[in-house]
């Protein structure tokens, strides 16, 4: 029995509706991913931006004889719990350095305790009612306000939230990445040059290729196990140091650099090589003087992306012990240090509410650096990309 035209066109309409549904669903999926990204960044901004502000209060600091023994005595009793203990602790030292201070009384803006900070930001606080009244009074007199938090950028880790900062972690990240770059960039580029320009196509070369692709997909924590067993236990590299962290990350970044360098080398057209060989260049001369310079933007882009990846990596560094409590900037490559992501991890484990803010602030800094690194890579590629 044949169908009528009406039935067929109804069927057709149904089929087209189904087709449209697929389109909307797939659009929705992409939208979902985008929506998550927006939610994520908003959440981080809301949580993290207050970390860049820090409460300060203006109090009368009395540099008396007693204060050099007992720093708590330097401020009056009603504001004593409101001033950061870390600040008070510094008073005797400052009095020793500066003899003129003795016996004077000055009005000074000082770092407030993190509870005051949280109270001024409208969060839950442990301050008692009378202490809250004092803060309210100070605020009404203009003697308590939120200022830009320089401590966050200039000091290292601390158990006191108002004194905790990212300086030591940032420096640790820089040192670790220097080691990573110094090891993985030359080795990666050399490997890629060998595989693309020199290696014969035999079993051995294929083995190396498969191996590199596989390394790129190995879970990062296993590199941490390698770092622990080989670098620390076997070679005796100091634990928690930028050297061991950098070496571990270098092995992880290696595949990224190799793969991107190979792509960059492959995009250099053969006519360049032919021309260079034609005027009598040897293989190395062709690579050094012609292929590598042309592939350099691509290599740089890949290395920056690999470096950005290494910068956000935490798991292998935890395994090699780079989560230590580091209040001061590491002085050398073999001293214990920590990195930004590890600092974020440590702070995330702190129970105090104020540290959630610090953690989010650290995350914002890390994300800002990562995004600018990636943007640099994109700009480099756009600027120097050549279509042959």
């Amino acid at each position, binding site marked *: 029995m044949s169908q009528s035209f009406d039935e067929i066109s109804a069927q057709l309409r149904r089929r087209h509706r189904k087709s449209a549904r697929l389109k909307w669903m797939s659009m929705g999926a992409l939208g979902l991913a985008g929506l998550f990204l927006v939610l994520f960044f908003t959440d*981080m901004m809301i949580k993290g931006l207050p970390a860049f502000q820090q409460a300060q209060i203006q109090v009368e600091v009395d540099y008396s004889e007693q204060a050099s023994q007992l720093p708590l005595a330097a401020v009056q009793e009603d504001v004593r719990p409101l001033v950061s203990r870390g600040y008070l602790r510094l008073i005797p030292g400052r009095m020793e350095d500066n003899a003129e201070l003795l016996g004077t009384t000055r009005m000074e803006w000082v770092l407030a305790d993190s509870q005051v900070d949280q109270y001024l930001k409208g969060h839950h606080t442990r301050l008692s009612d009378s202490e809250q009244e004092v803060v309210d009074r100070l605020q009404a007199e203009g003697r308590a306000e939120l200022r830009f938090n320089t401590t966050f950028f200039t000091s290292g880790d601390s158990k006191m939230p108002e004194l905790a900062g990212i300086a030591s972690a940032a420096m640790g990240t820089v040192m670790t990445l220097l080691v990573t770059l110094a090891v993985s960039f030359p080795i990666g580029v050399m490997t890629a*040059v*060998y595989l693309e320009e020199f290696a014969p196509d035999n079993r051995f070369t294929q083995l*190396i290729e498969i191996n590199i692709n596989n390394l790129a997909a190995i*879970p990062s924590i296993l590199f941490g196990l390698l770092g622990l067993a080989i670098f620390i236990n076997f070679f005796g590299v100091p634990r928690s140091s930028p050297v061991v962290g950098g070496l571990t990350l270098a092995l992880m970044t290696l595949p990224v650099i190799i793969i991107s360098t190979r792509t960059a080398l492959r995009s250099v057209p053969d006519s360049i090589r032919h021309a260079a060989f034609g005027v009598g260049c040897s293989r190395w001369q062709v690579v050094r003087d012609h292929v590598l310079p042309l592939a350099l933007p691509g290599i740089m882009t890949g290395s920056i992306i690999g470096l950005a990846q290494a910068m956000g990596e935490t798991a292998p560094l935890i395994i090699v012990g780079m989560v230590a409590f580091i209040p001061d900037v590491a002085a050398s490559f073999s001293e214990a240090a920590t990195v930004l992501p590890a600092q974020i991890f440590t702070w995330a484990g702190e129970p105090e509410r104020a540290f959630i803010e610090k953690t989010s602030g650290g995350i914002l800094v890390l994300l800002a650096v*990562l995004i600018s690194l990636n943007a640099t890579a994109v700009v480099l590629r756009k600027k120097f990309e050549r279509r042959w």
Partner: protein
Amino acid sequence: MQTNQILALFCGTLLVLGLIAYFLGRAKASRVRAAGAAMHAQPDQYAWFSVLSSAGPAIAVGVVGAFAMLLLGAEIPTLYLLAASLVVGCAGLAMGIALVRPDFHARKAIESVIRFFLAGAALISIFTTFGILISIVGEAIRFFQMQSFWDFITGTTWNPGASFLAAAGRAEEGASAAQFGSIPLFAGTFMITAIAMLVAIPVGLLSAIYMAEFAPQRVRTLAKPVLEVLAGIPTVVYGFFAAITVAPIIVDVAGFFGIDASFNNALAPGIVMGIMIIPFISSLSDDVINSVPDSMRQGSLALGMTKGETIRDVVVPAALPGIISASLLAVSRALGETMIVVMAAGMRPNLTANPFEDMTTVTVRIVAALTGDQEFASAETLSAFALGLVLFVVTLSLNLVSVIMIRRFREKYRINNL
């Protein structure tokens, strides 16, 4: 003398030696050429060759000596070592200068040295794999000497608590013997991975289909980098987000429906991990769908299929090997993911099928075992390597299957750029 000073002295001597070699070689080559002989290479190349022939052996002797001292514990006075490498360097210099002759191919010699170095660099990646394998297998074997392999594979209780007493030689004091049954860990890993895949595969695949088949060019160029941003966010940030933001929301929502959820429930890390993995699936699937030949789409549309039917019945089946390969890579990624689960999932090994309860994973236990205060030789610390071995084997096989699948796809449609 300090190690640093010796190193500085060594480098300084080498530099001087290299400079001498360069200028001597160059001077001799220029002289020979000025005398009218046709040489095989340029003076500069002879100069570089003599640098290589003097500094190369000196460095080799130094490195071998340093390794012997570090690893084998050989007692070589550093000054003797320095002198030895210097002597070898001078001998190399003499040989290099002697070889500056018209019939010597300096360029080819340099070339082969460079080639040797490049191949050496390529070997490092192999060494890395072997390093991972050796370090993990070696320590895992030590673990299995202490604990039975069968109990590890089939046991349902993970309780390493008392193992440090055993390591301290006080085993009898422990209230209960340490147990290393890994099934709860694998169950937890599997549960969180499954949740992640339930999020990542539909969303990633549909996004890929939209970008490849429906989206206008402008949306494509915008959406790709946005998805890449998802992949670029560090996992520690995702972990924080899962623990601080997502987990409380899930507890609230579950409470609304009358379900009792833990703050370390498996859903929060699972969902966030799924979101992290979306770009892996979408970007590879996008490439694969794009490389399905257009003739197949044209044939299907010419037969009167709608666009949706073409995608469902022609394009996706054709791209299936690639999509499966992408999903396998994503699974291997989820299995090995550490920071999200360390921060958002529980620490308590828990054999359950309820995603609202807290459960722990293999990677969490690895981190927990290696960041504690245990001695390295204790069973708990070594158990990390046994777990790492399992993780390595599983992810390796997933990666290999994935590579084979994508290769099959590539051969079927003769695509070279995947």
